[in-house]
């Protein structure tokens, strides 16, 4: 009987959930029908004198709709949406939800406060950014960057480099529009960072196309950990680093050699051709491939010299033929 009763309970639960979902959908639909034209008009600068009524229970779906539109626009359209939010006192609601809401409400509140750049929520957002919940905390970082990028960099650069749970891709998306504000703070934080965290930190800098002060970069390029050196080589874009880059072409770790070859490509001189040709015989495929690409990219290496390489020993010939064919088809 137990199994039968449980099955009946499950059936009842499914029916109740379906009824509840239908009701929610109908309510959300009505709210969207009333508000979407208003928000669309606002984005084009047409703001009505009086706004449609909005029941408290419709506030969360409304904020979801508002956020949906905000995520798709910039500039004046975004400001007009902010104006509507202020008229509805969404700033007050968001601050309240950030402190008292459940997890979903706090996430929505964080996004709203970021879009309206509400400085009064600063300390609450800092608290959110420091919590362990990866998704919620990185959104709080985003909101803080919207409010004041330089101040956020000052407050969070060091702790940001310690967060292994924040995806690099998402961090780069958040910081890339405010790279200048973050460059000095990140460089300073890297100077005092635990060596274990250095590779990820350097990869973030590389992703943001930021540079390190030369002294610090040289330290990283001379680091004992191959992961640190490989990550630092991504930042070695200046001719001043060329000698250190060349020194790593024969590094015991193939990942360092790959990054050294990549770095040398744009910096290469005539006498680097011999070094790169030697790497066409490297035991690791990626080193050979990047060396062939670097050679093919050097403006002073004539095509017939590359084709001669493609007819040389088997290792070099295979990879050189592939890279030349790629150049032809792309």
């Amino acid at each position, binding site marked *: 009987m137990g199994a039968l009763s449980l099955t009946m309970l499950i059936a009842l639960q*499914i029916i109740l959930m379906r009824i509840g979902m239908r009701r929610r959908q109908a309510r959300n639909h009505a709210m969207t029908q009333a508000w979407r034209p208003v928000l669309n008009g606002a984005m084009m600068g047409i703001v009505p004198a009086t706004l449609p009524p909005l029941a408290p229970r419709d506030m969360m779906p409304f904020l*979801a709709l508002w956020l949906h539109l905000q995520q798709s626009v910039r500039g004046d359209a975004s400001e007009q949406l902010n104006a509507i939010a202020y008229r509805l006192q969404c700033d007050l609601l968001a601050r309240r939800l950030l402190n008292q809401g459940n*997890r979903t409400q706090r996430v929505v509140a964080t996004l709203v406060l970021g879009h309206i750049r509400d400085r009064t929520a600063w300390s609450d957002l800092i608290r959110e950014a420091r919590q362990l919940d990866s998704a919620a905390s990185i959104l709080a970082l985003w909101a803080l960057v919207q409010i004041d990028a330089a101040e956020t960099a000052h407050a969070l650069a060091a702790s940001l480099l310690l967060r292994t749970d924040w995806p690099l891709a*998402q961090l780069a998306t958040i910081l890339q529009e405010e790279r200048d504000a973050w460059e000095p703070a990140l460089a300073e934080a890297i100077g005092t960072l635990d060596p274990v965290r250095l590779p990820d930190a350097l990869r973030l800098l590389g992703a943001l196309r930021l540079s390190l002060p030369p002294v610090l970069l040289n330290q990283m390029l001379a680091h004992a950990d191959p992961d640190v050196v490989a990550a630092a080589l991504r930042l070695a874009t200046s001719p001043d680093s060329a000698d250190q880059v060349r020194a790593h072409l024969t590094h015991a770790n193939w990942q360092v050699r790959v990054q050294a070859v990549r770095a040398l490509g744009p910096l290469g001189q005539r006498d680097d051709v011999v070094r790169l040709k030697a790497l066409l015989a490297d035991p690791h495929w990626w080193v050979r491939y990047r060396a062939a690409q670097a050679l093919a990219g050097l403006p002073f290496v004539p095509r017939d010299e590359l084709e001669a390489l493609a007819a040389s020993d088997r290792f070099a010939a295979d990879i050189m*033929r592939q890279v030349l064919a790629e150049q032809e*088809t792309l």
Partner: protein
Amino acid sequence: MSLYLVLVQAMTPVVIAYFIVLNGGYLILNLLSIVALQRRSRDAILDSLPQVYSGLEPPISLLVPAYNEEATIAASVRSMLQLSYAELEIIVINDGSKDATLDVLKEEFGLQAFPEAYRVQITTQPVHAVYRSLRYPNLRVIDKANGGKADSLNAGINASRYPLFCGVDADSILQRDSLQKLVRPFLTDVTMVATGGTVRVANGCQVSGGFLTQVGLPRNPWALFQVVEYLRAFLFGRLGWSVVNGMLIISGAFGLFRKQTVIEAGGYRPKTIGEDMELVVRIHRLLRERDQPYRIEFVPDPVCWTEAPEDRATLRNQRIRWQRGLAESLASNWGLMFSRHGGVPGWLAFPFMILFEWLGPVVELCGYVFMSIAWVLGAISWDAFGTFLFLAVGLGVLLSASGLLLEEMSFHIYPRPSQLLVLGVVVVAENFGYRQLNSWWRLVGLWRWARQQESTWGTMTRKGNWQRKV
């Protein structure tokens, strides 16, 4: 008391206990899945917002093994080219097809022979040529000697350039954002080595341009039974195990792997039928032996749709193949069971699979036969026989109903009340005949595995009307 009666009295509680433990185990998985789905629902609002991508997400190689797929391969590749992901390469591996698969690909995508410096990281059957599309720079085709699906995937791994690869069946229908969903666990956890997504039944759905445009239920009863089966298998079978990092199966139809881990494990094992499961079990075993921290995670979002068999013979062959694959996977990784560092996979998931999935059909069918004979001969009472039937069928209905509940809690894929009603009927009906038939087919699979009959590419009678050129 005769020996016969002693046997009956001893076996009756064993059979009943088996069914109780089996269904109890699944109910615990069900509870774990509910927790996981509730956790996931917290981020539903974020998923509903437009996503911003930096282009720094790890690039993915999509590997598409193809054997005699001339009718569908062009449409499949076209839909894969439209997947929404920052950096993606598609590698089709023509596994010595006897039809015009390669010619179709050459014509449709402007393929040109390409002097690829092909790396042999895993030994495969000889590669005849590598082609590159003149129209789509991220599309390559490997033409190789026939070696089976596992061998084709290995060739694809050798040719792939990116750190993550995703094995896809050529006839799968993918959600446009499927890779974005599948890659997420890799972004937040550096120890992630593989993720698998939910596969759903595409029969009855509308598909346009290689993408699913409207969800529907099939009219064919065989396909309908499989809709409920897939709900149960994915929403609490795999999700439940994923919560405790004990998932032993990632569907070959759509799974994302860290390439280096797979290469270190030796790649897919050629000449196996269940190459997808065997690889995952082997990864568990090897990483556990090394005491290396790792995660294998299940993404419950419906990311992949597949055409289920609509006739008895094809379904039977599929299930026989699956059971053989399961047996191969477990038998070749026996070292994981109760191993020193085995953890959840070695101490829970593996024994569970052995007891309830591998031996399940034997015990289940023997249980039905034994209890029926015992009742007919009057060796057990109607009460005992009724209790057995109630456990076997009643708990089966309960489990299927809970699969439907999880679906309703999370994705609401089937929006119409009539669809819910049909599924409700199927939840009950599948326990009267279909489930037992499945057990019989699985028993045949076990028998064939025991006889070590050679494996081949599975033949599948597909309709796939949406994929054919008009």
